[in-house]
């Protein structure tokens, strides 16, 4: 559908819009640095693979079927990643898996964009940066630790709300403002 394509291209090009679309998984997985890194890497892999396959498939399909294909591919890769996570990283799995699934749905949109692979890679790298940045802020200031390692100098300065839902929104908003503003300045 044209509308989706337009949206996809717009998202791929515009960092702000991209971050907004990626908001859900970004906020969800950014409670601590470990999950954020895992999430970022997974999304990168997901974007790469989805874009590759969808590009290939798109040549053979027409019209609305492309969307269905994108859904199948994205959800398929997401399921595979979730299974791997569940087996090899069970500590991270419970918090991250739903957001990965949601990411798949959003990923389908990015894969619609005209520019294809390069844009997908760029988009997921921006995502990685944003989510890790959010996680660092949330974990260091909110829980006083970094990737699970407690930081002694943060003791007594913790703002525990940052690790909770409201904190996620607020920190991510700040990150969006910073990254979006930085891009505009380019």
């Amino acid at each position: 559908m044209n509308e989706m394509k337009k949206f996809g291209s717009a998202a791929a090009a515009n960092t702000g819009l991209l971050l907004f679309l990626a908001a859900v998984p970004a906020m969800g997985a950014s409670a601590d640095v470990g999950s954020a890194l895992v999430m970022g890497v997974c999304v990168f892999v997901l974007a790469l693979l989805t874009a590759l396959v969808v590009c290939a498939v798109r040549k053979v399909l027409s019209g609305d079927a492309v969307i269905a294909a994108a859904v199948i591919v994205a959800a398929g890769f997401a399921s595979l990643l979730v299974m791997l996570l569940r087996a090899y990283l069970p500590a991270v799995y419970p918090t991250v898996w739903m957001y990965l699934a949601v990411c798949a749905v959003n990923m389908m949109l990015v894969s619609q964009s005209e520019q294809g692979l390069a844009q997908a890679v760029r988009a997921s790298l921006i995502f990685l940066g944003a989510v890790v940045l959010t996680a660092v802020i949330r974990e260091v200031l909110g829980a006083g630790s970094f990737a699970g390692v407690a930081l002694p100098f943060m003791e007594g300065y913790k703002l525990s709300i940052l690790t909770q839902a409201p904190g996620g929104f607020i920190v991510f908003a700040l990150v969006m403002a910073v990254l979006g503003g930085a891009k505009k300045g380019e």
Partner: protein
Amino acid sequence: MTVKELLLVILSAAVADNLVLSGYFGFDSSVLGANKKSFSLCLGAVIIVSTLICNLLHGILVSMGVEYMEIMVFALVILVVCAIAVKLMGEKAPSFAMLTLNSVLLGVALTGHSMGLAEALCYALGTAIGFWVLLEVFASLRLKLNNPNVPKAFKGMPITVLAAGIIAMAIYAF
């Protein structure tokens, strides 16, 4: 589950454990699509229908031992339900993209996948109600946020997310 417990499920899904404000789901399109009146109603109906179908399918998948396929199956179900909804609503339909991309759909389906049917129904109902209320809030919020005093970097999306965070703090107290 008793009626009382089911009512509690509805209430907590709508307010205390609102998927948007405590799970971040549905945030993106809820803000973007806040302008259309029909959006929330349509979305609400789609949430309930798709959750029910997904809940049933989960049971089938588990009994076949292929639980891991549920993400793909759910995503396809949601796609189909959204397409049908858009076709049914014809003129007043919100855009297809808005509808499908809404992570609430997958979020509710995945969270409610192991609940009993009645409980899942109530959960979906509660989420739909909570979401609808939230959409109204976001709609009026966007009007206020068009204020020219907002710093340039924050204009548009960031300030909306920040505002949502403050609303989330209110709910967090539960």
